[in-house]
């Protein structure tokens, strides 16, 4: 059976046989950094292409189809254009913060990649507080957005950044609640253990209706957290002409753009891990035969399949719904999502204590 775990293990063994322990660690760290950056770039290209195609088909048009077959090199060409563009900086901006902001946003997105198990035994950092680490780090990206909005010295940018701040801070709550309701069931913050607990079925099926509600709340909250339509208040093209990145051009803009898509990937990966069992194949209870057949599909296919399904869901939202107004956005969080998710968490706790889940 094909498994990435075997490849990485044999590579590690080979390295250990030729190099000393410290050097092995350094070499592996370097390789991981390169792999992470490569993953970053590839994901960015793939997701932007996917977004454009999904949008096109929903909007009864063809989408990119000129560069390469089916237009698959369109996003590469766009990136090339952005790299070659002049790094234009307006007068009177706060130069240090202006330059720093895109990196803050991007590095935050990269940091969260660390504890995500991409396949069975394929993980950068197996940390025992994985979920906690992710929720903690993901809040930092708002600082980058605020920085960008403030440093741009543009009123539109400032408004966009302030909106983003209010929005991310409030939606963290219900996203956290939704994540907690799964933690209550598993009793562990370690992502690997959470996946392992779904060996006999995914939590979205095992956890009855509360798990379903938690999932819906999670999807809404993370859509808001990643500043995606219908919650794209920070950018709000028709109101703020671009929000916090109005004044950014060239590669600096591209970093914001890329970080947005990486953030989507990350939140969807976490959603897939918590609710759909990450790389865990589709198992039903103790049907040994069926489960065995499912195991033949490699684990990374399962992981990426689930993640991309969730990404598609978020894209589907974007191309269907109008945007909310800022006060309605906060109303939705504080009057609807937060009470519902609190009640839902309570219900989940009862289920966990009584052991009513499968």
């Amino acid at each position: 059976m094909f498994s990435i775990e075997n490849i990485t293990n044999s590579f590690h063994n080979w390295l250990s046989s030729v190099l000393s322990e410290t050097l092995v660690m350094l070499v592996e760290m370097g390789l991981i950094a390169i792999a992470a950056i490569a993953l970053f770039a590839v994901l960015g290209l793939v997701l932007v292409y996917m977004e454009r195609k999904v949008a096109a088909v929903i909007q009864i048009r063809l989408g990119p189809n000129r560069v390469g077959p089916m237009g698959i090199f369109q996003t590469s060409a766009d990136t090339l254009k952005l790299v070659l563009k002049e790094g234009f900086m307006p007068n009177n901006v706060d130069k240090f913060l202006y330059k720093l902001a895109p990196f803050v946003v991007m590095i935050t997105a990269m940091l969260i990649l660390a504890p995500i198990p991409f396949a069975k035994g394929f993980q950068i950092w197996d940390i025992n507080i994985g979920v906690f680490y992710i929720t903690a780090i993901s809040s930092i990206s708002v600082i980058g957005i605020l920085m960008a909005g403030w440093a741009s010295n543009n009123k539109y940018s400032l408004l966009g950044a302030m909106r983003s701040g209010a929005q991310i801070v409030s939606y963290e709550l219900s996203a956290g609640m939704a994540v907690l309701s799964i933690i209550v069931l598993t009793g562990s913050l370690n992502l690997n253990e959470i996946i392992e607990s779904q060996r006999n079925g995914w939590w979205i099926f095992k956890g009855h209706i509360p798990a379903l509600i938690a999932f819906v709340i999670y999807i809404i909250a993370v859509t808001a957290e990643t500043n995606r339509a219908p919650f794209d208040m920070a950018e709000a093209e028709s109101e703020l002409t671009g929000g916090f990145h109005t004044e950014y051009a060239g590669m600096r803009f591209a970093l914001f753009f890329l970080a947005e898509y990486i953030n989507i990937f990350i939140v969807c990966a976490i959603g897939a891990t918590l609710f759909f069992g990450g790389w865990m194949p589709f198992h039903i209870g103790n049907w040994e035969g069926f489960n065995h057949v499912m195991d033949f599909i490699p684990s990374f296919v399962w992981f990426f399949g689930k993640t991309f399904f969730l990404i598609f869901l978020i894209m589907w939202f974007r191309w269907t719904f109008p945007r909310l107004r800022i006060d309605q956005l906060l109303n939705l969080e504080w009057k609807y999502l937060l009470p519902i998710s609190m009640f839902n968490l309570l219900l989940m706790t009862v289920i966990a204590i009584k052991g009513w889940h499968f």
Partner: protein
Amino acid sequence: MFEEVATSKEGEQIINVGPQHPATHGVLHLIITLNGETIVNLEPNLGYIHRSIEKMCESLSYRQFIYTTSRMDYLAAHINNHACALTVEKAMQIEIPERAEVIRILVSELTRIASHELWWGAMAMDLGALSPFFYAFREREVITDIMEETCGARLTMNYMVPGGVMADIHPNFVKRVKDFIIQFKSRIDEYDQLVTGNIIFQNRMKNVGILSKEDAISYGTTGPTARGSGVSCDIRKIYPYSIYGKLQFDEVLETAGDSFARYLVRVKEMKQSISIIEQLIDNIPEGDFQAKTKAVLKLPKGEFYQRVETPRGELGVYIVSEGGTTPYRIKFRSPGFSNLSALNHMIKGHKIGDLVAVMGTLDLVIPDIDR
């Protein structure tokens, strides 16, 4: 205007929306005073596309000046031309053949639907839903194709001449219009599913930009903007011109006066226009499409005013003639100009996001405002 910027109060900031801004659909410049996200004051600054069409028309003959009015409200070019042709015909007392009248009304109503389609798509796009724009353009495309076949152009077609229309309808016209009616009726429900019924959309529109009946009259608003506030002002109904007096259709009135009411008026008006087309499409009388007129038109000395209903409201054409071949003075009373003046009143105290919703339902066409 710019001195005031410096004297704004503590805690207030001034933002320039436009002349290049995605929501203003053209080169409208709004100077907005904001307190946080709340709009304290709004002042439009016009003229970025002012071409002084009124002055231009003073040197054009009565046949020539009609085409320039297409460039005012370019989404309702045919209806603008209709107003001009009606004024000239009224002044010269030209009898128009029945067939020409019917063709004019058919094309006018198709134009009205096309204009409302574009408004619907663009307004949904302003509110952040991008897909409805493409669905609206799918239907609009059918209309522009019909126009292209019969009138020779898609948008500014100049199909109107004093005394009738420029050419007879194309042999395919009746069939294609009937096909369009069938297609449109099957699609109009999708609009309701996608936008009208959507909870986010309703929350964005309801109780936003309220214009009371008294204010609507005082601000001189017309068209769907006034009818959303319960003011009966459909010129086709109250001062019928052409053959509108003989047709069966309802004047759509809503009383709430908010953005959603204005939205509903426009969507329902599309259905009314379809019913007008249905009444006429099978009963196009035989005959000439153009009355015999002299090559050079000379209006008698006097003043002539004609009011017509464009998709945006009442368009008035006021011609002062000295008896020559060119107008002495011409004034276009454009619907957008007076509708825009109510914007400051409607938007005060709302959020900046509401500005987009209110401006969307006013359906401003900037060349129409600036002329």
